[in-house]
């Protein structure tokens, strides 16, 4: 339990997927202009990450990892080089499936999240989480918690950035720094703030 809690806290603050590993920057820069979209995309990312991380865990550990196919009688087979293409396919399929399910059961949620779902398939944060999960040898439960925590961390970052950018509209920023430049520098300052959590150990 403690272990899970520590992974959760760590993936939100210290190892924030966006601020410490730079994943999901493209949509972060583009979407944080608008508060409502940021919240919508944030929820969509949390949702998709929580689903794809454990599913990719199952696929990796029962099909791709070295020796994973021993249940089928092929103990020497190592398909781990296929993980990139498999993960991205799983993510694309899951995003599509989630989109259809939401459309069927909750049209209201669909109309607010719908536009963002296709964007997520190519969000580096999703693939990155699955790859980190493999690299760090998480267990099934850990990978689920890690997926959820990373999503929450990403959402926290994009929503606070959107809030900062609302304030920034009234600031007088040097000409060349407007837009992208100042966003980067503010993100850097935010990342510094998040690093302060690194002293916390559970």
């Amino acid at each position, binding site marked *: 339990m403690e272990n899970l809690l520590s992974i959760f806290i760590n993936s939100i603050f210290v190892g924030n997927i966006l601020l410490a590993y730079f994943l999901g*920057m493209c949509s972060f820069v583009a979407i944080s202009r608008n508060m409502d979209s940021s919240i919508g995309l944030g929820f969509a990312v949390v949702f998709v990450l929580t689903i794809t991380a454990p599913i990719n865990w199952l696929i990796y550990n029962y099909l791709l990892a070295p020796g994973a196919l021993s249940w089928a009688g092929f103990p020497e087979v190592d398909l781990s080089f296929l993980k*990139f293409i498999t993960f991205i396919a799983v993510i694309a399929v899951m995003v599509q499936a989630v989109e259809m399910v939401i459309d069927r059961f909750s049209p209201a949620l669909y109309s607010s999240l719908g536009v963002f779902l296709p964007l997520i398939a190519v969000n*580096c944060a999703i*693939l990155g989480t699955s790859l980190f999960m493999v690299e760090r040898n998480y267990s099934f439960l850990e990978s689920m918690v890690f997926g959820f925590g990373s999503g929450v961390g990403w959402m926290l970052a994009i929503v606070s950035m959107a809030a900062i950018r609302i304030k920034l509209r009234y600031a007088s920023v040097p000409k*060349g720094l407007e837009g992208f430049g100042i966003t980067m*520098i503010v993100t850097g*300052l935010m*990342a510094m703030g998040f*690093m302060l959590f690194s002293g916390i150990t559970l």
Partner: protein
Amino acid sequence: MKITQTQHFKAFSEPLIKSNPVFIQMLGICSALAVTVQLKTAIVMGLSLTFVLAFSNLIISMLRKVIPRNIRMIVELSVIATLVILADEVLRAFLYDISKQLSVFVGLIITNCIVMGRAETFALGNPPGLSFLDGLGNGAGYGSVLVAVAFIRELLGSGKLFGFSVIPNSFYNAGYENMGFMLLAPAAFIIIGLLVWLQKSIVKE
């Protein structure tokens, strides 16, 4: 006609500075910055991305007339993913140490927005030769940003270039210290921000 005015030259040279993929198109910052602590990893990353980008552009452009429009994303992704697997396996075979340091970031080239973005906006509408050059140009533009950031971070952060100490000992004796901050994540964001400022002031309309 001078060589600098041909279409092919332009496809290659424009993305280097004028429409640099990172600064202007704001693409592909994602997986990149984490590898800029050292020059060595940054260069390898830049080269891998250039390879993937150039060949994915070439292949997708050759296939552009046979790919059905509504499944083009999947086709593009599988071409890109295949190239990334190739690059990853080659790195693992010949540059094992660096590939360990790059860890997941080689795999993340798949979702790097530059590759998808160039395939969508350029390769689908242009002949193979031109697309290949566009891929090379964008890869080089991206690589040059990586190298610039890595140069600053490695020099100021650990006083080294390519792993060799370049700051003379007399500096340290006189009280100079490495900036540990440069090795941390926030520094990369701030350096990119400042480089954008520099680039915008140089390339003024």
